[in-house]
């Protein structure tokens, strides 16, 4: 039970990091709160669902299509909303309300387009993809089915989602710390005005970060049918709150803190599920408030904001 909760918590933790990562990147770069984050995750989930239903595309290759589609959607959306918002008196607060409006629009359009019924992709599909990869790597045939780790059995979909999330987090790290654009992005994160003064095209850097943020949210959506249960147009709000919990635990505005936040969240979530399941729903909220009060800057944060 203990080992099981711990390992399942790690797998879910990696996935929760992926959920929070895009939101944290957007907040870190633009200091705006994307309350529609969960709704982009929902849209990504639906795109993967339709790709699977209509042309029976496996969710793993669908990741790339979904990411590109939403990253491209993000660029015009950025120029449409954010520059205007940043000129207002209190952009951080107004972004809250603006993106809430966007979230309502997305949820409404999705409900009109897809209806309210719950949808899902069979978990075996994801298993098939990792079996193919595992067979290729080990050189001999691997059976599709639950995966054994340290004597504990997990659904293959969990393992695949966990691994894929880990890879996505790693790629974001590479982007931020090993590319020139990532270097500029970090400069904007540290000090926006100074970045402008040094001649960085802040809007371009921010627009790309915004696109990547939405792309990451939608990629997390691809795994939502396996990790969060069935998908519905109304799932967005709950996901957004979860993402906030994850990134606040890590530390707001520091994308890599998200990994720590996700794992802490995932492990404690699994422990709650195993030992106090009737109160498990309370966990994200209590954890969020508690962390904010004890350590507002998050576990990895250095600076403490003024009250």
């Amino acid at each position: 039970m203990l080992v099981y909760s711990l390992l399942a918590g790690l797998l879910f933790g990696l996935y929760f990091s992926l959920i929070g990562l895009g939101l944290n990147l957007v907040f870190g770069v633009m200091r705006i709160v994307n309350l529609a984050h969960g709704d982009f995750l929902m849209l990504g989930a639906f795109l993967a669902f339709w790709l699977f239903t209509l042309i029976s595309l496996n969710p793993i290759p669908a990741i790339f299509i979904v990411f590109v589609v939403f990253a491209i959607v993000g660029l015009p959306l950025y120029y449409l909303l954010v520059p205007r918002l940043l000129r207002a008196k209190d952009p951080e607060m107004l972004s809250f309300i603006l993106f809430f409006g966007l979230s309502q629009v997305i949820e409404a359009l999705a409900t009109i387009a897809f209806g309210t019924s719950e949808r899902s992709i069979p978990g075996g599909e994801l298993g098939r993809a990792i079996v193919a990869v595992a067979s290729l790597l080990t050189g001999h045939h691997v059976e599709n089915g639950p995966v054994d780790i340290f004597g504990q059995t997990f659904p293959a979909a969990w393992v695949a989602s966990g691994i894929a999330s880990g890879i996505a987090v790693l790629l974001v790290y590479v982007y931020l710390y090993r590319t020139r654009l990532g270097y500029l992005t970090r400069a904007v994160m540290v000090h926006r005005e100074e970045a402008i003064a040094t001649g960085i095209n802040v809007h371009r850097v921010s627009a790309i970060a915004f696109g990547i943020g939405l792309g990451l949210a939608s990629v997390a959506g691809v795994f939502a049918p396996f990790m969060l249960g069935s998908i519905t147009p109304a799932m967005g709000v709950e996901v957004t709150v979860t993402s906030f919990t994850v990134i606040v635990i890590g530390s707001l505005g520091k994308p890599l803190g998200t990994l720590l936040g996700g794992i802490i969240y995932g492990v404690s979530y699994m422990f709650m599920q195993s030992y106090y399941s009737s109160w498990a729903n309370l966990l994200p909220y209590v954890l969020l408030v508690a962390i904010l009060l004890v350590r507002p800057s998050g576990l990895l944060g250095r600076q403490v904001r003024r009250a």
Partner: protein
Amino acid sequence: MPKMLHHVTLILLPVVAAFAILPTVYSNHLLLFNFMIFIMLAQGVNVIYGFTGYLPFGYVGFFGAGAYGFSLMVIHLQASPLVALAAGAAAAVVLGLTLTPLFRLSGAYFSIANLAAALAVFQVVSNPNLESLTKGPYGISLSGVFDPTFAYGATLAILGATLGLVIYLRNSRFGMALQAIREDSISAGMAGINVVRERIIAWLLSALIAGLAGSVFAWYVSVFYPETVFSGEFTIFAIVFALFGGNGTVIGPILGVVILYGIYNAVGISTPQYFQLIYGALIMLLVLFLPNGLVSLLRQWGINVP
């Protein structure tokens, strides 16, 4: 002082009189009641967001706390409605007091924490394990104290008091101090304003308004589920109404409720998705093109807005 009297005669009295007279000529009392509830909630948001700049994204928590404070008093202690009303208000204020540490956070952090706190209260109240205390997810029924006429009258009185409070804030040193804190808390502190105390008073007043609104809501509808009184829609509607009209004024939130909630009801609620769509789009347009509300338009035309 004459200005305050002016506002009372020009805004408070007409609004209260309208809601006192309308039931005799208009038969949908529930709709009138809802209008009053939303004016109270929008003004409650105004008190904390308009005057101090803290956006309470979990405002509905106070509303729900009020509703449950009222109901549990009636169910477990068979209290009379007015005593229960006081209990509901007290529940909201106590919740407000417990949440005062949130003021250590600023901006979006405060809003997120407030939202999480409201959701946590909802999860506790609706937890099946607490059925003996709160009836859990199965809802509350208060048939014993059901008295729509009395409840309507009480709501009217609370509405009047709420408007009176906002008029006071708009025209007093205390209200000025709050606005100074909103603009620049450090300068306000340097000017001799007790930032922490004044802000908490505004916060508790705002919680009190929502708690009273929740209490009379529970009394008036008398049958409800936890999802009803902890519905995020109350928060959203209150914020949008206040924002649409104009924060930090007396008349703004009233205009917002009358116009937006009026349209909302006039068009009818046949397909909720279309409303959600229109509302979402409206919120976005508001933030982008009219971030200071309708009253900012009036101000541009040289009209002095109370």
